[in-house]
């Protein structure tokens, strides 16, 4: 069994590469279930409903804008809008072992500019996306 330690994930939001600020990323590729259980059946049956993909990304807060767009400037204007997010396990070329997950029409539900804002701690920011579709490519 091969185990991989994630060290250099690539995260691009709205065409801006924010990989250097990413602490963690969680991709959820899901489908809603629709019940089709009918009389005479002895167990519940489901069929596929709508896609219910989602993504949660945690970043270190950085307010820098030039020459590099950082987290706050990129994320803040996106709340309540849709965008595209591209995530790879490693920044290396896309392959079967390093697939690209492209999240299109992702609705930016929320962004926490200061996280908990606790004294003595590094401020973290989180972005939560839902809706849209995640497509996996391997080449």
């Amino acid at each position, binding site marked *: 069994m091969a185990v991989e330690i994630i060290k250099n994930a690539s995260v691009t939001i*709205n065409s*801006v*590469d924010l990989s250097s600020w990413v602490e963690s990323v969680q991709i959820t590729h899901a489908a809603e279930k629709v019940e089709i259980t009918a009389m005479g059946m002895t167990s519940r049956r489901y069929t596929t409903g709508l896609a219910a993909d989602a993504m949660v990304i945690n970043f270190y807060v950085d307010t820098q804008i030039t020459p590099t767009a950082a987290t706050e400037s990129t994320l803040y204007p996106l709340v309540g809008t849709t*965008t595209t997010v591209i995530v790879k396990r490693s920044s290396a070329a896309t392959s079967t072992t390093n697939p690209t997950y492209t999240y299109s029409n992702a609705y930016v539900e929320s962004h926490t500019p200061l996280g908990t804002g606790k004294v003595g701690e590094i401020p973290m920011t989180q972005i939560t996306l839902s809706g849209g579709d995640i497509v996996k490519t391997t080449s």
Partner: protein
Amino acid sequence: MANYKVLVENFAAPLGTTVTDDELTGSNVEALVEAGVLKIETSKTKTDKE
């Protein structure tokens, strides 16, 4: 069709280049302009001198 100048180095296109609406399909252009990532380029009109 609008053109935009890239103002940052970690955008999908290189710093200083010009990108078009077509190249930005799937991206939220308004948010990129608000973020200071892109700047709308105004077209220069030529006037004839008499």
